[in-house]
């Protein structure tokens, strides 16, 4: 982690991430309660209280290229226990939205998000069977969980047919008007 000096502190990024102060990012006391309860504390590279300080210091690049923002499982333990109600999960959402790419070891998360949204965009609802096929192709992860497939099909937990058509047009419009032609998770 690179050092911030008094002269390098840049509050522009803090304002970009929390323009109206609703996330309470500037209120973090560094007590560490968020990090001690973080579900991903053993696997992440930057803990929640560190992220909260880094955003105040304007360490933009380190945050955007971190493993942490993709390792977050959005369990909301951090914000629920925070004495200052610092909304770290929403900060992480905003960082993910801004990040151009994910580190290699976390790229599957980004690929899954992209395949998930492509399924919703096309069918209005998630078609899980199609999503799994699309994800596995893009992530080059062909063999995991294949053994579970027969039982899931037998028990009717996966459908070979896509969902009904009713919502497709309206949902496609929502996608066109929000993320537009941009590919889902970029």
């Amino acid at each position, binding site marked *: 982690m690179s050092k911030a000096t008094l002269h390098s502190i840049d509050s522009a990024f803090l304002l970009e991430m929390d323009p109206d102060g609703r996330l309470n990012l500037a209120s973090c006391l560094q007590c560490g309660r968020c990090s001690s309860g973080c579900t991903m504390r053993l696997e992440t590279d930057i803990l929640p209280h560190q992220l909260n300080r880094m955003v105040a210091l304007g360490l933009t690049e380190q945050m955007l290229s971190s493993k942490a923002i993709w390792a977050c499982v959005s369990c909301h333990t951090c914000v629920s226990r925070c004495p200052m109600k610092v909304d770290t999960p929403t900060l992480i959402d905003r960082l993910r939205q801004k990040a151009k790419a994910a580190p290699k070891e976390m790229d599957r998360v980004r690929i899954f998000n992209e395949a998930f949204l492509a399924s*919703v965009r096309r069918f209005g609802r998630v078609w899980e069977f199609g999503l799994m096929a699309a994800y596995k192709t893009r992530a080059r992860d062909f063999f995991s969980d294949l053994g579970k497939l027969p039982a899931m099909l037998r028990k009717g937990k996966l459908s070979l047919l896509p969902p009904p058509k009713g919502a497709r047009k309206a949902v496609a419009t929502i996608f066109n008007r929000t993320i537009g032609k941009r590919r889902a998770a970029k």
Partner: protein
Amino acid sequence: MKYAFFPGCSLESTARDFQMSTLAVAQALGIELQEIPDWSCCGSSPAHSTDALLAASLPARNLAAARRLEKDVVVCCAACYSRLAAANKALADDENLRIEVSKVIGEMYGGTVRVRHFLQVLREDLGIAEIRKLVTRSLGGLRVACYYGCLLTRPRELSIVSDPEDPQLMEELLAAAGATPVEWPFKTECCGASFSITRTDTVKRLSGEILKMAKESGADCVVVACPLCQNNLDLRQADIAAAIGKEIGLPVFYFTQLLGRALGLSDEALGIGKLMTSPEKVLAR
């Protein structure tokens, strides 16, 4: 009692048993669930990780459709509940977002519909005492570990329980059905949720800790209210047991399945046969 019902994508596929048992229980209790016409996906984690306006607009379309039914919205999937409730609150609180979303979905919606989880309806509208009266086949002291996970308990503003660190909602309900809830410390830990596919080892570690703790706490089974939790704890249980070299053997029921049994409904109607970890032994006691 009539409600607008939002099933969500999981209840139509991997959590079909949650859908079946919910509809069966609702019918037995005189609760009418009217499906929101042409409902669409809530967007789940991929939407809020990608674009804030998309993440608000996908639920808003469904909530605006529910408004036309003039009833509270009932949700069973914890992830759908969380997304619908979060968008609803954001739309009520933020005028700019309201205007932006109205341009996307083609109508103004101000977060005015009430979004509720089915557990809340059972306790608040029907009442535990009323449910107790309708129990015809007690669960006979079955020791249940009630597991809530994340999205029903956090963040606090959207929590369906009064104490997000030690919820008692499912415990009260299942005790009324004749079960014995066990005291255990992991009821609001995270199972790894949507990382099931992308980071399976993480999910096995987290879900494994939860299953081990439930077992050590003396539970016969785990009871959940979330399709993601159910999948991670049930579908991956055999792999987890193999990895730790110990048998676990804990069936993972939806709360509606056990409640339905207590109401005298058939296993077939409740989708009990769709569980991966066989419940036969614990139900035969």
